[in-house]
């Protein structure tokens, strides 16, 4: 029995770490599809890559809401999620998804069918779609970083990670779709590699920050790097998700097959990252910290 297991107390009336499982697989899937979809849409928007925009928007408009609704306790009242954009990142994100879907669809229609919009309006729609897309790429990170409950989450690097991961997925997918569609210059491997390295760096940053922030954060980092999630996190999220694509992109250059492989690996790793960021979050060793904060010696 490892020491970390000793400190996990489940639902007993003992002090120790407790997992959060309020946000779990459904939420990870919703986050994942929102970020992949929005990332693909935004990158495709830059590249004027209509199939990419369509696919990206489709992900953000279907799978993301589907899994988010699946997560909700009272799905039929979920429209209420938009009630408090003044303070809640969930509200802001929900609105952003709506704006993205609406303006994105209009933009695609304008591009393809050629709905006769005045140029100023068309541009406004494009910028609105872009802005909403960027919000959707980031807001999950903001929603998580807003929680002081988990040191693993409570970091400004979380939205950065969301943005970078979404961008990486977007760039990888857009480059494949572009190549398949015979659309323009494939994105340079250098940019993809740079994004993958940046992802790696920000993940490292999140872990370092978590460790420094509190015992709970250190415990989460330990779960990911040494404890029960080491295989899925180090092997999956980092190895398969970042290192493998990096090697493939650097070694394979523009090769489409390798690019597809790299994209698949990256998406697998991305989802692992999303899920494990939820699963490794532990409530601060509440009673240890509590004990210390009320002047009692904490159990080591």
């Amino acid at each position, binding site marked *: 029995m490892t020491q970390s297991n000793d400190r996990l107390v*489940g639902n*007993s*009336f*003992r002090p120790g770490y407790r997992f959060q*499982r309020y946000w*779990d697989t459904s939420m990870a899937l919703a986050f994942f599809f929102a970020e992949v979809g929005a990332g693909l849409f935004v990158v495709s928007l830059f590249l004027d890559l209509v199939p990419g925009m369509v696919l990206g928007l489709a992900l953000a408009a279907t799978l993301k809401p589907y899994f988010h609704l699946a997560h909700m306790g009272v799905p039929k009242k979920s429209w209420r999620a938009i009630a408090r954009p003044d303070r809640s990142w969930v509200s802001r994100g929900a609105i952003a998804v709506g704006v993205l879907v609406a303006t994105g669809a209009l933009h695609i229609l304008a591009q393809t069918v050629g709905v006769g919009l005045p140029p100023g309006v068309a541009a406004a729609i494009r910028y609105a779609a872009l802005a909403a897309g960027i919000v959707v790429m980031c807001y999950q990170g903001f929603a998580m970083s807003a929680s002081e409950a988990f040191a693993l989450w409570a970091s400004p690097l979380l939205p950065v990670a969301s943005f970078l991961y979404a961008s990486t997925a977007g760039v990888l997918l857009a480059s494949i779709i572009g190549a398949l569609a015979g659309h323009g210059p494939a994105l340079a491997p250098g940019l993809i590699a740079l994004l993958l390295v940046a992802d790696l760096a920000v993940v490292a940053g999140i872990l370092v920050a978590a460790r420094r922030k509190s015992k709970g954060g250190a415990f989460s980092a330990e779960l990911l790097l040494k404890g029960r999630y080491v295989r899925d996190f180090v092997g999956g999220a980092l190895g398969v998700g970042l290192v493998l694509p990096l090697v493939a992109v650097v070694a394979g250059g523009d090769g489409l097959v390798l690019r597809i492989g790299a994209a698949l690996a990256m998406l697998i790793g991305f989802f692992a990252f999303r899920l494990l960021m939820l699963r490794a979050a532990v409530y601060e060793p509440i009673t240890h910290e509590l004990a210390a904060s009320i002047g009692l010696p904490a159990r080591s």
Partner: protein
Amino acid sequence: MSGNPPLQNSLKPGKWVNSTCKMCLHSCSIRVHVTDGGVVNKIEGNPTNPSNAGKLCPKGNAGIMRHYDPQRFKQPLRRTNPEKGPGIDPGWEPIGWDEALDITAREIKRSLDKDPRLIMPSLEDFQKMHIWFWPLAIGNHNFYQSGGTMCGGAYHPLNGYIHSAFGAANDAKYCNYWISNGGGDGFSSHLHAAAAAHWVAKARVERGMKVVTVEPRMSIAGAKAEEWIPIRPATDRLFAMSLSHVLVNEGLCDYEFLRKDTNAPYLVGPDQFFVRDADGQIFVWDKAAGCAKRWNDPTLKNEHLALEGEYVVNGVKCRPAFQVYKDILRDASPEAMEKHTTVPAATVRRIAHEFAEAARIGETMTLEDGRTVPFRPAAYNYYRGAQGHKTGMQTNQAFQLVNMLVGNIDHPGGRCGVTITDGCVDNNHCQPGECGQMLGAPHQLGHMPPFAWPPNEYHLAGYFPVGVNGPHLNMLSYTEPEKYGITFKPDVLVNCHSNPVWSIQGPREKWIQFLKDMRFIVCVDVIPTEMTDFADIILPSSDYLETYNAVMIEPPYTEGICFRQPVTPPIYDTKSEEEIFFELSERLGVLDQYNEVINLILGFNQKPHLALEPGTKYSDRDIAERLGKLWNDKPIEWYIEHGHSSTERRLDKWYRPWEGLRLLFYIEDLPFQREQLRRQFEDAKVPFRDEWPFDDYQPLPTTVLDPLHYEPPEYNLYAITFKDIQMNFGESLSNPWIKDITYRDPVHTGLLLNTATARKMGFANGDIVLVESPYGKLYGRLTTAEGIHHETLGISNALSRTRNENRSVLMSGGHYNDLLPYDMKHTDGATGQPETTCKVKITKLADWPDFLKQGSTVYDFVDAIEKAEGKGGMH
């Protein structure tokens, strides 16, 4: 906000009913909320009772889950499956009340007509002594229930000698230094747990009362203590005697009290009896006159009574009783006792000094009733664990002598007697005895049956003239009838709210066979237990929210009647215990006898207009009404409105109720009883007279070691069992709310082994182990812990249930009681108290044995809680 429809249970439209809790055997006052729809939806403490002051323990809070337990017996049942055994479906068939009572009476009568001794009663309702004593109506003295020695076997008789009371409590109102030795009073268990915890917490928090807890496992009292002193199990007496050694040898005693208010100056001869003149008057030594005088000599002054020295009176060498104890204590120095107790001598010496200093010997206080009495705010509390040993009587006396030496008996802040009930408000429990002494009253629950050979009681009660019924001794008669001269074998068991097959020590297999040998078993109960699985007929009783009762049952700081009334009509086809036993009595033709027994037991004879009439059956309401009137003449309507007549204990009954009498520092009655019993054994030529433990009758405690310490050395650990407040007294573990809190508390989720000891012995947290004593075994899973003595295995009572028809009960790996002996070698000859500690060895197993792999066990439940990952807030 106001205006919103009420969602909280206590605010819904409905009524509050004042009643009394029965989730343990005590009687905290409750108020119960019933909705307009007739649903019981909240139970709270009744703040008007100065005992529990509106507070309730977790069990009291969980009463609704007993009331609405879907497994309650809903109508009389008859067994259809002739095969009996744990986990074997009895094949219950519902029958009508008349038929059930007829069958029961017929079967009882079949044996009763042959020999009343063939009936084995097992009637545990401690709030209804008129049910407990029903066997007297059929001329029967058998006993097979967990009251008696499974309770405070030695505690109660000794309290009877010291306080003329059933129980005793430290006076939390004034106490400033509280030693807690192997008992939960004031923290987790025993007398009115919520009430006692309330007043003790006030003393701790508001007055800074210091608590020193001496026990092998850190209990709640240990956790709350300023100092927890781990002690080797079954050596508590030696600890107390080492304290006394310091008190006596360093002049830390209340000598004025000992001279004036105790028999400590009475002169004791070499035969352990007081030195008397021809008229039986006891001699004391007058230091001023330099001669012996009779205790009542008018020229005597208390301050001249010798407590120490050796004298010759009428040619007999004698010593004051105090000197006798001082001589015994010579062997009990803290240094000598440390070898046994493992408590450092320096600690004992420090505690003795702190205790004596806190006792403020010499100080007095003036009470509201005008009396000026000694003020002794330091007291030694002890109970179940510390007292439950082979040498029970000596052990209890050793504890009380610590109190007596500092003069705190029945004084403010000290150790005060607690009566089980007073009957009438004006009854004083103390009576004069011989030669100025208070009458020792060891028989707080009535006298034991007279000596007879061959024995008339299956549990040999006639051989314990000052003891308590020892249900474990039934096993002696059962397994060795020839040796014990048994001429009859009980074949009908009458059971009410008792689970003896679970709660009595000794091997379960033999107890199960004992039950299987019964021709007929009737169980009166509310829910299925290990015991009801063996019944032939179930007579379902109504629960405490559906019936009347009135009881005063050893409230530590108050007196008066706690009144129970139906909050709701019975929700099933059930009857009160009274109705059942009056019906049976009538069918058996003993109704008049039963009414006489009740008049005697409940004291109705004291007010003849309350006495039950011959030929009449009474209801629970009738009995409750009379008990209320007996106390304070208030009609039942008054009790229905108020729910209790509890007031703070009247000062004249709480402090020095024995005023003018001398307390029994030296219990001469014990050698007297011993010699009388020895003569009876000799005269009757009882074949086992040479091995009977007469030596357990001692007028003062000795340093003899309990025999468990001499078990073979391979049994290298001590084992103890324990409860906390959520399991205080009776059944709780089928109650979902109690399960909720019990199996989340780390001390109840595994066998507790000291962390360092485990490391040394090669065990780890989570190891599955076989635990074997010389007498039995169980299986369990280790929890390594710091809060347990380094030679001790702590086995929670929550890990002791066995498979039965109650599906809410989680099976564990056996029962602690299986590890305990039931023989006379480990039974106190004086009280019948059996040894409740044992020596064990543990062996690591690769996996659970097969029988624990089927079905849900405690450990599965614990795992589900401890390994849960907080999904959806399930915590």
